[in-house]
């Protein structure tokens, strides 16, 4: 009896071992290389949660071409050097694709590694320069600043009828890229930038920059900083009684910013490429799904991560094989409709540079919630 028991056990172990071995051989391995600490913690955590949720959903629905996805997560500490090292490590581990980092400064450095190894790399970074370096393996999950800023500038010029604007930005790749893009876009719309206010990443006290913004006496203020700093800026603006319109791009009205800034976030207006409050049933379903798993409401970075994985899925299916080079080729010029691939949430088109195009929204914070004021059509659709 004992003997049979042992044999059975050994057999079971063998089968189990063989089973996992087989699954591993077939799985599509991806690496999440994101900011889980440091200034990018909010953005990175959301992005990672979005990616993991998508993987769960895809695996539950049978995987991609019958293969399951496996993911590992690594923390860049919001440090480009660490991001580069971790990317190298992930490549050595033989991942099929890399997701992240979200911070522009990090992806600018780490994407050289994925390019060399010909590994598709999805990023949440928005700096215009990322896709201007001719890297065929980097793909965005959201707008570039040079797509988003003209939409913001148009709103400031036509919607707010502002003649002068003060620009407050964070002094890193993301902030400087945004500052350059908005300045150019505003000038193209005949709006003058009268104050150029630099702030630090991780800055605590915003009294000096806000004072500068006030004394510039512009018709509107454009704020372009990361999550925590945006919250502190909004609070200080409220404190010093700033009364002109406060406009931003995506981050300014993010869920985390609203949570941190509290009442001071009310009235802030931003153009967002992605929002869980979009009037779109798929997006609402995603919002509920995300909340169910993580007990908080996703911000745009969560959507970036989630839809990014579905973009990869669509590309692998288009290529018809799990081959990195073929998939990267398939991604260029890929058009995915939400009706056929609900996971992308909104119709999306990827161009030859890895930039993407889709509808976007103008939102205002009211009573601590984002409210969509206007749906702006995709750039190509507008033409």
């Amino acid at each position, binding site marked *: 009896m004992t003997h049979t028991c042992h044999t059975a056990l050994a057999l079971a172990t063998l089968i189990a071992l063989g089973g996992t071995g087989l699954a591993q051989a077939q799985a599509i391995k991806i690496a999440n290389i994101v900011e*889980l*600490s*440091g200034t990018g*913690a*909010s953005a990175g*955590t959301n992005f990672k949660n979005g990616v993991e949720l998508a993987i769960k959903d895809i695996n539950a629905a049978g995987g991609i071409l019958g293969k399951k996805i496996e993911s590992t997560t690594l923390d860049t500490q919001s440090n480009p050097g660490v991001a580069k090292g971790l990317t190298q490590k992930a490549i050595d581990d033989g991942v099929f694709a890399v997701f992240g980092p979200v911070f522009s400064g990090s992806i600018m450095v780490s994407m050289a590694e994925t390019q060399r190894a010909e590994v598709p790399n999805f990023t949440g970074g928005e700096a215009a320069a990322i896709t201007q370096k001719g890297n065929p393996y980097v793909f965005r999950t959201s707008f570039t600043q040079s797509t988003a800023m003209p939409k913001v500038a148009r709103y400031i010029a036509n919607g707010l009828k502002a003649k002068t604007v003060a620009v407050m930005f964070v*002094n890193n790749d993301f902030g400087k890229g945004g500052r350059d893009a908005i300045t150019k876009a505003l000038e193209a719309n005949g709006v003058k930038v009268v104050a150029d*206010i*630099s*702030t*630090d990443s*991780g*800055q*605590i*006290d915003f*009294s*000096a*920059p806000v*004072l*500068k913004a006030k*004394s510039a006496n512009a018709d509107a203020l454009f704020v372009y900083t990361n*999550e*925590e700093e945006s*919250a*502190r800026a909004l609070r200080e603006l409220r*404190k*010093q*009684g700033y009364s002109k319109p406060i406009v931003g791009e995506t981050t300014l009205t993010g869920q*985390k910013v609203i*949570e*941190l800034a*509290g*009442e001071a976030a009310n009235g802030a207006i931003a153009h967002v490429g992605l929002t869980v409050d979009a009037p779109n049933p798929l997006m609402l379903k995603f919002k509920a799904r995300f909340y169910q798993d993580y007990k908080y409401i996703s911000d745009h970075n969560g959507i970036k991560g989630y839809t990014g994985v579905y973009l990869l899925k669509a590309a692998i299916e288009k290529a018809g094989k799990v081959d990195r080079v073929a998939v990267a080729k398939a991604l260029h010029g890929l058009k995915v409709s939400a009706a056929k691939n609900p996971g992308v949430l909104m119709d999306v088109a990827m161009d030859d540079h890895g930039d993407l195009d889709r509808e976007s929204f103008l939102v205002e914070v009211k009573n601590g919630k984002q409210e969509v004021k206007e749906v702006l059509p995709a750039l190509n659709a507008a033409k």
Partner: protein
Amino acid sequence: MTDFFQLLFSGVATGSIYALAALGFTLLWQASGTINFAQGEFVMLPAFAMLGFSAAGLPLPIAFLVTCVLAVVVLGWGFKRGIADPLLRHGLMPIVVATIGLSIAMRNGVRAGYSAEAHPFPSLFGDALFHIAGITITAGDVGTLVVALALVLGTQAFLSKTVTGRAMQAVAQNTESATVLGINVPRMVFYTFAVNALLACAAALLVTPTYLAKFDMGEGLGNKAFFAAIIGGFNNSRGALLGGVIVGVAENLAAAYVSPAYKDAVALVLFMAVILFKPEGLMGKKEMRKV
């Protein structure tokens, strides 16, 4: 000119927070020769403890009191028995390294155990605004300043006016003589650690609404407080207050009138200047090294 005063005032409010943390540095140094590089994390942990107790349904003042008790046990007694006592015997270097290690462990412990994201923290004083001669001041700024000042001065008075305080000072100045005089030296040293833990709790209560509860919030705070303590004078508690306010104000003025990019360099420049020209600090006393 109103701009200047606006900056000055918010600088003083920030500075008074640096002063609270700096006071902890000078206290521990004076009483036990410990330099605690985990001082910033000593502020961060109570902030998370208060958040935790608040989440468990306790109102903020009660959460603060519970946290104080916990801090005295963990950050006071535990820190003294676990780290300071065994290591101090071997000189200053081991304890410096150990507290740096402790700060890294605390930061990453909170990151792994709680979350890496920033969390909002309720303000004790509400969001009321006052406009005085063109300057806008929040109730939070005034409250922070008043409470921090009261705490620094209160600690001063405790040290110089009460029997226990004087005994603590005696231990700090000359441990052997204090023992001969019948002062319970280990107990006095423990009191210092306990006071340090309480100051850290108070600092947490005051700074977290602005800093936001985040695992790395102590990093910058600890550094600034250390600079403030050196600038003011490491062996003088009043020096900590002066140093803190100087750093806070200088930073704010530099951000507005020079460039925000150099904001964080200001404390360092002041620190270097003091080290070069007045190494005992602005209010410190020169110390002779006994051979």
